[in-house]
């Protein structure tokens, strides 16, 4: 964005957003400062892989959308599209408040340099929830400026001027109208409105809340969408990087060996702790890795048992993350029900492995990366290459799955080192084996519960001691961890909604010799499995129907009432009160995450001796769904991915290495095991909450509870099969 295209004036709105106005390319452009809402997520600025200075909040507003002389609105997307439908949802919000038709919106992906910069990256189910107020206010401001200009042109009072389908219309004579495209072409000293622009009231929403076809699908249907693995430029080469034979191994010495003699090899790049090959084809680059002479310094091997024991050994450590009354004392002398729940290491298994194309030139660096964090990647590359940040541009592509695995993308640094060495663009795309063995994983968890019931079957005291590997601490520099007290990523989903007079939940993080980090929902799936299975155990002990048991324990608070409505909705959908078909049984569970509540009922049975999940009913209260079909798709998909983890997925360690090198050792759910899924969305307000992760929360517990109802066997460890 050139300086001349920068808005000349800025003003502060009532929410404290700066709104900038200006003429760009003959149209009217408008932007907003991302600082204030993004500050709530300032932590996310630390999630880069370089731990360089955190991406600072922008000092000036960024251009967000521009109205073109033809009336089309070009909206720039600060978030990346990884299948969650975020581009479509954000465009819906903008079209709504601008007063344009859906067809008038066009979208473009922002790069790390802008024009819109959002240091938070795309994660934590926060995109729509976090941008909703800012996006509405910015768009409404632009609409009001156009309304004022249109009223002036039509010679009417502003109150008489309506905005609809990208035009200002005389409400007294609707044949008199002037389009936005015409308005922005007229010479005018654009002024922001003196008063805060009114937001369109929810009862007049035309686009928000309507099922809307995704903007990214036409290209995806034709195989024309470009992902990081697909990035291609003229003159590019392919790179491959030598990998340690064991986790934590260091490269002690490396030499090119015979690699340079292999036809097609362009360069061998050896730096401190790094050895890579650049070649004319990817297969040649990988083949040449075998020609290198490498000496690794191996740490002592560790086993799966070491990890399991490290977790169990800390079962009594931890800092409180939820405390009411004195649970420890209340449990003394009571008849205590106890249980321990475990979940394993798990992989993201995003089907597009890590990929980046980087072109390091003398004056500037351009990188096309499959990443959830383009600004962090740009900062990392700038510091790695010793460049000024403004000369490094990271262009995020479509992501072939993110699920948290593309929050840090070291592959961009690898491609940058190789490109810098040869002076040509280099693409690095990991193999499936690299993806399995050299990625961070979902951490294992170990949760111990103790609880007591009174004579009426009410929980009087409950204690949960939660132990996990790192989720977010892995990404936060150690000196800063004290700021956060506990790793809230690890315990996401571990706090209980239920009204229990004496309650204690503690969290403890164990350092493990295997890298762990954020996986879709962070701790949500694993922790909801433990909490909601244990609640089921208490319902059984109290001899109360599991739905009724949950309803009785909900607090009479706004959140408690939302839980009640969501549980009742899923109960009605699934005919919970009726007995299932012979040979089948049902389980129920619920969760809250990023303020979205989900409740699932799973119906299971045996096919031969194999457990089948036949049906899943899901009720989800996301506040309001901007794109209901999109949220239904996220719920269906979250249930399938969660079910895959519930039934099949476990990473194991063998001789200090991740055992699985491909899907033969880590099979995923297929369509053959996919249940029928029915989703109902509840609307509890006018503000959207999280969408990408929360709907998956209850699935593991719902299935485990159904399995108990079917077999009488309480399974306290994932995966349930295998």
């Amino acid at each position, binding site marked *: 964005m050139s300086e001349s295209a920068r808005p000349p004036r800025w003003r502060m709105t009532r929410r404290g957003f700066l709104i900038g106005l200006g003429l760009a390319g003959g149209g009217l452009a408008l932007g907003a400062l991302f600082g204030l809402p993004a500050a709530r997520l300032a932590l996310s600025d630390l999630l880069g892989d370089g731990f360089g200075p955190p991406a600072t909040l922008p000092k000036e507003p960024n251009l967000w959308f521009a109205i073109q002389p033809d009336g089309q609105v070009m909206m720039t997307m600060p978030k990346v599209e990884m299948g969650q439908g975020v581009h479509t949802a954000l465009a819906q919000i903008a079209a709504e408040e601008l007063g344009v038709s859906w067809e008038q919106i066009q979208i473009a992906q922002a790069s790390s340099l802008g024009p819109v910069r959002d240091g938070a990256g795309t994660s934590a189910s926060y995109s729509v929830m976090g941008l909703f107020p800012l996006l509405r206010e910015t768009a409404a401001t632009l609409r009001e400026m156009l309304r004022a200009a249109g009223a002036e042109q039509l010679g009417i009072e502003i109150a008489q001027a309506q905005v609809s389908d990208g035009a200002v219309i005389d409400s007294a004579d609707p044949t008199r109208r002037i389009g936005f495209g015409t308005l922005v072409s007229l010479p005018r000293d654009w002024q922001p409105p003196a008063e805060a622009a009114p937001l369109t009231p929810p009862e007049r929403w035309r686009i928000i809340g309507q099922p809307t076809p995704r903007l990214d699908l036409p290209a995806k249907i034709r195989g024309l969408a470009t992902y990081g693995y697909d990035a291609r430029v003229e003159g590019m080469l392919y790179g491959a990087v030598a990998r340690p034979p064991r986790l934590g191994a260091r490269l002690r010495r490396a030499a090119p060996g015979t690699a340079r003699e292999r036809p097609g090899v362009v360069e061998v790049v050896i730096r401190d702790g790094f050895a890579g090959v650049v070649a004319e084809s990817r297969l040649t680059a990988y083949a040449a890795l075998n020609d290198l002479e490498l000496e690794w310094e191996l740490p002592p091997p560790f086993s799966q048992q070491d990890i399991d024991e490290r977790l169990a050994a800390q079962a009594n450590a931890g800092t409180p993350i939820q405390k009411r009354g004195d649970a420890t004392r209340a449990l003394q002398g009571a008849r205590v029900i106890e249980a321990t729940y475990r979940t394993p290491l798990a992989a993201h298994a995003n089907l597009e492995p890590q990929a980046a194309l980087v072109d390091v030139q003398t004056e500037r660096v351009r990188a096309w990366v499959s990443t959830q964090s383009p600004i962090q990647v740009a900062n990392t590359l700038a510091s790695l290459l010793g460049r000024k940040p403004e000369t490094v541009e990271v262009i995020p592509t479509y992501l072939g799955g993110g699920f948290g695995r593309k929050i840090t993308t070291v592959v961009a640094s690898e491609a940058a080192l190789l490109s810098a060495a040869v002076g040509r663009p280099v693409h690095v795309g990991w193999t499936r084996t690299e993806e399995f063995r050299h990625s961070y994983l979902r951490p294992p968890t170990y949760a111990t519960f103790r609880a007591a019931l009174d004579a009426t079957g009410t929980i009087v005291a409950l204690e949960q001691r939660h132990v996990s590997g790192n989720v977010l601490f892995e990404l936060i520099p150690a000196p800063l961890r004290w700021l956060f007290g506990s790793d809230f990523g690890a315990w996401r989903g571990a706090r209980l909604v239920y009204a229990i007079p004496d309650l204690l939940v503690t969290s403890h993080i164990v350092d493990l010799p295997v890298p762990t980090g954020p996986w879709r929902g962070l701790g949500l799936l694993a922790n909801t499995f433990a909490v909601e299975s244990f609640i089921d155990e208490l319902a059984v002990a109290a001899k109360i129907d599991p739905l009724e048991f949950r309803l009785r324990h909900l607090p009479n608070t706004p959140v408690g009432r939302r839980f009640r409505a969501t549980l009742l909705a899923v109960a009605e959908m699934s005919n919970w009160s009726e007995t299932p078909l012979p040979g089948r049984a049902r389980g129920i569970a619920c969760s809250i995450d990023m303020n979205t509540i989900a409740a699932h009922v799973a119906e299971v049975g045996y096919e031969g001796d194999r457990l089948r999940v036949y049906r899943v009913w899901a009720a989800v209260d996301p506040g309001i769904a901007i794109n209901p079909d999109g949220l239904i798709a996220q719920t269906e998909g979250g249930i399938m991915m969660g079910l895959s983890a519930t039934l099949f997925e476990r990473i194991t360690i063998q001789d200090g290495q991740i055992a699985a090198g491909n*899907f033969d050792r880590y099979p995923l759910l297929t369509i053959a095991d996919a249940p029928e899924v029915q989703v109902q969305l509840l609307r509890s307000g006018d503000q959207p909450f999280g969408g990408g992760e929360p709907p998956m929360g209850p699935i593991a517990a719902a299935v485990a509870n159904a399995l108990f109802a079917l077999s009488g066997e309480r399974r306290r460890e994932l995966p349930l099969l295998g």
Partner: protein
Amino acid sequence: MELIINGQRFTVAAEPARPLLYVLRDELGLTGTKFGCGAGICGACTVHVNGVATRSCQTMISTLAGAQITTIEGLANGERLHPVQQAFLELQVPQCGWCMSGQMMAAAALLAANPSPTRDDMIAAMRYNYCRCGTYARIGRAVMRAAELMKEGRQ
């Protein structure tokens, strides 16, 4: 050697043992066919060889002389989407989309051989294609919908 891809003839210089996937993506720029596992497990690289759904990561180009190869880029008839693509769009099946070329190629091969599949037929044909986003419920509906669209098209 010469390859016939989407009805067009291409001369490729790659060694005979090179898997088709790398020739499509890295030499011919046909990146619609995706790399997922390189081991023939996930199905992301599925193309048609003489109409049969085939893992391009496991198919050496030396075996393809004279064969008709179709990729996702050649599935539509110009602007006109294949019924499978129409159905996948209508039911808003893709999420991230990475596996979708393979899913649609597998579905199109099924329907070419069996225009009226039962649900079991559909699952037998589609069960070797992973979707990590978990769009299976919609994939199943879309394949059956595509069969309907093809019937309507023939009438």
